[in-house]
């Protein structure tokens, strides 16, 4: 077992009836790497993450996280991972304090340690004033901060982040990106799903692009640009995932949507 490989997928597959949401996906991620996992809507990104985090089971293939099989040793895997889902769903009638206490207990963290970590996160995310308020009226960004804090509470080795910057203000987003780099430098592996390609380009050491359940590209941003001879990740992404020439279609649609010039009455008929 290679202890430097923290995530390893072998022909991982998930079927929904006849539809293969994830189709024989294989790759590995070493310790300390920030992996950007990209793909158009419905490409199978979230399904992959859901399998790796134990939320759903693979139909076929296998995966190991920190050396543990996600199906046979699912508890060992879950102990070592943190997850921020795209939905950011929380029990809103609880306060962040109560929610984090419950989460801490799920990971068997003693109350005192939970309190200490909550204090740290409250300072970092500047939510100290809101710790005892119900989350019912929180903005999406505020709830997202709580979800990220919950994912980090038990100090996981691998982080799965699905659109973690959703709803966050620019300052907090910047802080999170810095934090992720620090965590990566400290040896934590980060699996980062996002549609915001600029962030992925700046943050991730390596990018995997999936389309229709299969891996279509894998490499550093620089490699991918060279490979496709494109200047930005956005163009690389479009090249690998868009079918046909979109330019004509865009022209056709926009020509229908552009309003005709309003008759001001100044001109003579």
């Amino acid at each position, binding site marked *: 077992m290679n202890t430097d490989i923290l995530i390893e997928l072998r022909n991982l597959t998930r079927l929904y009836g006849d539809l293969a949401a994830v189709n024989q996906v294989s790759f590995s991620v070493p310790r300390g790497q920030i992996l950007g996992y990209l793909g158009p809507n419905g490409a199978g990104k979230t399904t992959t993450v*859901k399998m790796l985090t134990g939320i759903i089971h693979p139909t076929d293939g296998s995966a190991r996280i920190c050396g543990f099989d996600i199906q046979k040793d699912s508890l060992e895997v879950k102990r070592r991972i943190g*997850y921020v889902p795209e939905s950011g769903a929380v029990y809103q009638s609880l306060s962040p304090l109560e929610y984090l*206490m419950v989460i801490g207990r799920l990971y068997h963290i003693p109350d005192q340690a939970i309190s200490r970590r909550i204090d740290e996160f409250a300072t970092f995310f500047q939510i100290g004033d809101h710790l005892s308020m119900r989350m019912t009226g929180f903005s999406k960004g505020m709830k997202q901060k709580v979800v990220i804090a919950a994912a980090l509470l038990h100090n996981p080795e691998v982080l799965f982040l699905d659109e973690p910057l959703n709803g966050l203000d620019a300052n907090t987003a910047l802080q999170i990106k810095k934090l992720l780099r620090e965590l990566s430098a400290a040896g934590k592996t980060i699996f980062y799903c996002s549609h915001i390609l600029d962030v992925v380009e700046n943050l991730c050491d390596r990018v995997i692009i999936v389309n229709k359940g299969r891996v279509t590209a894998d490499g550093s941003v620089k490699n991918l640009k060279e490979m496709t001879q494109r200047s930005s990740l956005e163009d690389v992404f479009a090249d690998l995932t868009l079918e046909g020439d979109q330019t004509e279609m865009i022209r056709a649609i926009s020509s229908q949507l552009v309003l005709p010039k309003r008759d001001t009455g100044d001109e003579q008929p």
Partner: protein
Amino acid sequence: MNNPDCSDKIDWMQVKVLVWTGLQLDLRGSAGTGRLHVRVPSLVWNLIFYGFMGLAVSGTLVTSTNLQMYGLLVLAYSMLMMAFSVILEFSNSLFLSDDADILFHRPMHSRTYFFARAIHVSVYILGFGSVLVFFPAVFLGFHPDAGWMFVIPFYLTATVAHFFTAFAMILFYSFLFMWVSPERLKDILAYIQIGIVFVMMLSYQVIPRLGPVQHMAQLPTWIGLLPPAWFLGLLRLLTGDVSPQALLFAAPAVVITGIFVPLFMMHVSSRYLGDLQKFADLRENNRKRTSDKKTGTTGLPDRIVEKLLKNYNAVTGYRMTTFLMRHDRSLKMGLYPVFGLPLALMIISILDGSLGDPFVQNIYSLQNNMNVMAVFFIYFMIYFFLTGLLYIRDWNAAWIFFTAPVRKPGQFYRGVKTAVFIRFMLPFYLILGLIYAFRIPWGHAFRHMMGLLLIGLLAFSAVGLTLRDFPFSRKRERGERMRRMGFVLFAPVFLVITMAMQRLAYPRPASYWISQAAVLMLFVLLETWSEYRLNRILTRKEYFGFS
């Protein structure tokens, strides 16, 4: 929404789309966190439940010698059922929870939205109402004094009565919107819910006790004050009884249903969407401080319980339940009302004189039916309460259970049940004991309360055998509460155990204690089995809460 470009007219295209979508959603139900498989829609469960209730009400004809009384009772019951249904499903029927996000920014006039939802509700009234009065109508057809000629007028009258009830309730709520803050309105809805359950159950007991009325061919005029009598008047007119009393009774039905209800509807419809938007806005801004205590949010008694529970998963379940029951209004209001009914029935049975000393006489007989009903509703309450903890507004937050390293997820329920037992069951049974102590010696009251508590615990464990989901992980959907009420079949089993124990074990102290020990052992066995089963089921479960 109230776009200045929109006319005040109803946009029937939009109405059609809204009604179609609403009905589609009802038929599909939701997957919740469970497996994505085809489920029996809630609608079907509801229809079965209404049919069952109708059959139960038909039984009145067997005991009632008076056809008018039968008509009055059936109309009263079905109208109350309709009112109850509108209350239970109010937020789902008239205001779909996603509407705020999906529709409120669209160019749609209030009147269009109101009529779409009103038509949606009407489909339900027609469907449920027809099923509800099906058996009573069939019974009427076989009745020698009525016959099949009565069936169609009866059906028509009942349908008008159902529409009247549902729309009167809707109007009542709409007016409440104008004067009451949305948060307060939620409380009021819950209290009305409790009130209607009381009226529903108690009227069944009280009306037959009016004695002389039941045997009178002509009903007393004061009965005309009750809305069901208005529709009985209408029925009498339709079946050829054009007597002054029938005309007097029918007049309010015709005037109110035909004139006032439509007039008020027109008035309410124009401001309906605006009021709902106010409702949604305030719901979103409910920022309330929960606690300033740092660690917890948990007090000393809770800390002691947590120490005793030891197990981390059980503590998590306990904590979640106590926190959510403390703060989540929808959860509280959905569950607390069930405590009222058994207590009220118990008090009535004392006032009624039907509650005697169970160690001296048989307290569960046809003569003491109030007492039997009270015990029946204790078990019903236990079932309803525990299964109710599955449903919560933020059900999709349950993903945390699936990503956490939990070997025995059934242990969550150990904590959940402990919280319910300590915070709700124990106080309930203590109050019950105090009520008993008014009528029977303290020692007997205590022993009887303990007997009931132990069988209650047994019922509590048995509920565990019906669970297949994590606590607080299922979406509230139309018919969910009604569907759970359909499981009233659960309660009779424990009612029979209670009756058997009182009959066989109470007479001798030795047999009493042996029976208590046996129930306790059975409870431990059932609890172990229940937890083992939940561990097995929940470990395999997948989460489909978000795509």
